[in-house]
């Protein structure tokens, strides 16, 4: 997840750079680049962010449902979210223990 968010942040910075260039130097090339390529890159970045948010919400909901099925107390959403990105990725890729 954090890998995708970093990619989204970098793409956003690229799109912003093009937009700032077109505002500071409004000649045909910068303006056209900002309004075509810049818009596409910025939209892609925002799309990635939206996808990450949706995936995160689904993960939280899935964890809550699983906890309910196991009869455990429902984990607080904040606690589920307040984890290191690396730990979250490791937890997501960890195979389930046998019998669980």
């Amino acid at each position, binding site marked *: 997840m954090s890998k995708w*968010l970093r990619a989204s*942040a970098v793409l956003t910075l690229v799109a*912003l750079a093009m*937009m700032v260039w077109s505002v500071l130097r409004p*000649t045909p090339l910068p303006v056209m680049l900002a309004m075509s390529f810049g818009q596409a890159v910025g939209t892609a970045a925002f799309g990635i962010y939206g996808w990450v948010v949706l995936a995160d919400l689904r993960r939280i909901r899935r964890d809550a449902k699983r906890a309910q099925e196991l009869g455990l107390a429902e984990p607080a959403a904040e606690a589920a*979210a307040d984890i290191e990105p690396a730990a979250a990725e490791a937890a997501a890729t960890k195979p389930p223990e046998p019998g669980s």
Partner: protein
Amino acid sequence: MHLDAFAVIALAGAVASALILIWYLVARPQLNRVTKLALLLGIGVFPLTTAGSGNYAGFEATKHREFCGSCHVMTPYLDDATDPKSTGLAAIHTRNAQFGKESCYTCHADYGMFGTVVTKMGGMRHVYHYLMTYRKKSLAEAKAEIHIREPFRSSTCRRCHTTTAPKWSEVGDHAALLKELRAGEVGCVGEGCHGPAHPWSKQP
């Protein structure tokens, strides 16, 4: 360099967004609620503000005479229009405060509900022709080839010269051609009575 309000808003949004994103990329904070909210601002809210106001500033910039004259083959048109001694129609109208810095756009923009969109699409065609044809040509070569795509419509002139003022009607040719002028069958400039708007471009 003049920055209007929309340009300032675009730049402010870009700076705010960049600060958040650089902080996120460098500090690599925990992905908690605060970080998510910051990213919503940095990837969503501020860039959308920048895109909206930046696009508007860009569209406004494309109306400026300097923008039109920034391709080298348009330099003589720009020079003539801003020459205080020029007696061409383009120069006379450029000296009119109503046309201001947008004298090229004011006369060459299409009229009507979709006029702005049609004009911008026409501008894209100009850029295409410049990149594919005129970019490597000298001014002399380009001058011989550049021409207006369609006859200049009298409706553009009639946005200001409404054909209803008594002084306008006193001119015999105006009165005689009133019906044809209003129907767009007769032009004012170009092949019309008032000649080319950029007369220097028609001289050998």
